């Protein structure tokens, strides 16, 4: 029943999904390594960007703007409280002025139908800053808490964002315009333009991240924090600033994923959770530590998902999630770690 063209189509589908999972896995690995937070709400950021992007196609003023401004105000208050009013200027710049500026631009640009690239950029610009704002509100005040407590805090943020998503975007899904309607035929394989775009953007984003980590000072500081947080602090790298930067990157990656996925499928206010969970699966197969491994794992997850949707769609999720248990066992046996590092 399965012929070559079907297999190729499934593989293509799996690789495209896997690429998006891979991006999210990157964001999760990065945030976890730097801040020990398992960023469950990354899925909501994906949904919000996708819905904003879809709304911009209709010339709507982004529904997420009030949310951005409110988060900014909250982050300002929380930051002022925690720092007892020190360096209010830069705090206000980042939490009040920047969101307001973005909102202003969005209100001006949104009705113009300025083209797909501008709309995609704008959608990311509206949603990505929410990640560092969330860091200031929820996670920065919990620097020494256990991984478990941070996880539950992340669950709290996820719940709140899901509810806010319903209030902002409503229960129905939306689908964004494709970057390209082209269809390429390569032998038995039909390659859609959007698939090419997804793979291209993912690769480009990964290359950019690699360059950032290897070539820039801020990237080096992040890597240092990820490898040894206490050591990084001793040499003068502020864990706060690293955390903020990690969340910024996570927000941008989530935003990019949202824009990439919006033309492929209908996205709902709560649809991001499952996407994020699969990214998380890939991230943890990679031991929440290795970036290339996380991407490879994400591709495997995507392909397994696609193949099992074909063979046994009833049990698709069971297969996707059960397949990781042997992988985990194998990894665990190889590492044979007695204790937990934290």
């Amino acid at each position, binding site marked *: 029943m399965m012929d070559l063209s079907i297999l190729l189509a499934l593989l293509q589908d799996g690789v495209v999904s896997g690429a998006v999972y891979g991006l999210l896995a990157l964001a999760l690995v990065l945030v976890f390594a730097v801040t020990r937070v398992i960023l469950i709400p990354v899925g909501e950021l994906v949904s919000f960007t996708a819905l904003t992007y879809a709304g911009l196609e209709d010339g709507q003023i982004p529904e997420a703007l009030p949310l951005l401004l409110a988060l900014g105000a909250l982050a300002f208050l929380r930051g002022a409280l925690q720092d007892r009013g020190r360096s209010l200027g830069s705090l206000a710049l980042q939490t009040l002025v920047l969101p307001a500026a973005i909102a202003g631009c969005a209100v001006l640009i949104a009705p113009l139908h300025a083209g797909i690239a501008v709309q995609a950029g704008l959608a990311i610009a509206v949603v990505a800053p929410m990640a560092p704002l969330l860091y200031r509100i929820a996670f920065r005040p919990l620097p020494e808490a256990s991984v478990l407590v941070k996880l*539950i805090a992340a669950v709290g943020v996820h719940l709140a964002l899901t509810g806010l998503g319903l209030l902002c975007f409503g229960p129905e899904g939306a689908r964004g315009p494709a970057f390209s309607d082209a269809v390429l035929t390569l032998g038995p394989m039909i390659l859609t333009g959007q698939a090419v775009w997804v793979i291209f953007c993912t690769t480009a984003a990964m290359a950019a991240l690699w360059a950032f980590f290897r070539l820039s000072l801020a990237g080096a500081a992040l890597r240092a924090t990820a490898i040894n947080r206490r050591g990084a602090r001793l040499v003068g790298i502020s864990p706060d600033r690293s955390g903020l930067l990690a969340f910024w990157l996570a927000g941008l990656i989530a935003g990019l994923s949202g824009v990439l996925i919006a033309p492929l499928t209908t996205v709902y206010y709560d649809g991001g959770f499952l996407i994020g969970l699969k990214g998380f699966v890939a991230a943890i197969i990679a031991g929440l530590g290795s970036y290339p491994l996380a991407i490879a794992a994400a591709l495997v997850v995507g392909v397994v998902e696609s193949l099992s949707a074909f063979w046994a769609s009833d049990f698709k999720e069971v297969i996707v999630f059960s397949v990781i248990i042997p992988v985990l066992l194998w990894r665990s046996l190889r590492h044979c770690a007695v204790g937990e590092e934290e």
Partner: protein
Amino acid sequence: MTRPMLILIALILLPWLPGMPLFWVSLANQIGISAIVAMGLVVLTGIAGMTSFVQAGLMGFGAYAAALVAQSWGLSPWLGLPAALLASGLAAVLMGAVTLRLSGHYLALSTIAWGVSLYFLFVNLDILGRNDGLSGLPPLSVAGYRLIDVRASAMVIGVSLLLSFIATRNLLNSRWGRALHALQGGEVAAASAGVNLGQARLLAFVYAALLAGLAGWLFAHLQRAVSPNPFGLVAGIQYLLMAVLGGAGFLPGALLGAAIVVLVNNWLQDLLPLLLGAGVNAETVVFGAGLVVLLQAAPTGLWPLLARASAMAHHPQGRTALPAPSAPNATELLQATRLHRRFGGLVAVADLSLSLHKGEILGLIGPNGAGKSTSFNLLSGVDHPDSGRVMLAGTDATGLAAPEMAKLGLARSFQHARLVAGLSVIENVALGAHLRGTASPLQAILRRDRAEEAALFATAARALDRVGLLAEADRPATSLALGQQRLVEIARALAASPAVLLLDEPAAGLRHAEKQALAALLRQLAASGMGVLLVEHDMEFVMSLAHRLVVLDFGTVIAAGTPAEIRQSPAVIEAYLGAAA
């Protein structure tokens, strides 16, 4: 009868007070069922340090078992209870056999995978009614009286909650409870004290599953309908949230967390429409935000805030310590032959041979990085040699794990004191005597272990007395100064009444008088026939104490002999001067 019992008995009787609003009873029922699941998580996650997202799924096993028994097969709903416990317990054993080897985050993720898979298992099984589930379950009945009223259900739930609370408390205050505490950060020490870590993990997982199964049975007969929805991943996260919010390390925290989550959700439902109008559903928003705020105010959960002086567990007082086991016949207690250990390209230990005799104090010395700690780990089963042989009391112990070594009569302390943070000083010491107790977890739950516990604590108290720390017995272990923590480690080793005692830098951090006392103690132990091997930096201390010395440098033995001979050895002098230069 203790105060928590009084409170819970009051809870059982309260519903019947005239005028008690029925809905409050319904809420209390929800709280009770959730609290039973959350108690399992206190044991599993709070105490034993294993994060689990699958408790709701295990609860589903209990609920579906109850539904099958009472509805599909038409048997007595009371038969559903053993069926529910069997189903959830068996599921936990199977899952545990596959995944409990995983460590840390891997284990947590595998429970996410199980959580998702179990949900779809329930959804896809025709016998379980697929998505619609099984409805129309009969209520429980006693002598023909149907417990259909929520107040009647409340009594069953109240009794279950009470029994679960007592059982869990009993379990935690037993030798098994101490082993479970040690799973969080004290694994190496516990293993060296003879605790089978895999067994302890499985115990925590299965115990939590049994509580979840009990809750599932109660849930099935309270709702009288079972469908997959309450047993998915999201529900699993909810229970974890309750435990963490209440205080994952504290048993009453489970009840507190469950009560807060249920009551707050209920209040929000009443309050928010008044504030925001009927057309806005902001309950999850406020709940999620409130959760974050609460955790920021109380990162260890709310219970420790309420009960600031979290009273240390009461342990039985006993006067008779356990008799010392008969000493092995062999005079050569510990013998290492040509041990090698490599880490990657680095040779940590090469060709190490030594022997320790009955009644002897042997010192292992060498400059920093000479391989002393690695040797210690090889000798005590914490690490294994690439080649070579270890004989312990005449038995080949090469490649044996730490608990097996402990069974053969070896006890050790660690260079960095590894005390279990959740336990008091004396409980840490009693952990050392783990192997000298025989009570099973079931006996512990039923309190059939009190005599043995009394003896274990008497033994522990004696060991503490010998290191001069009896006065600190009930303090939290990690509140002691570092030097004292080391002494507690020695006491823990002594509590096992070992034939061979391995001490890793016991004198570090001690004041002069304390060192004198320690030296006297060690001499006394040796005189009683124990073999003592110690690694030590303090030359004066070790030279005056040891009968013989072995000197290591770069993983090889460069000299061996009496302290006087070592003092003269040119190789030793060069090694130390070279290292100093």
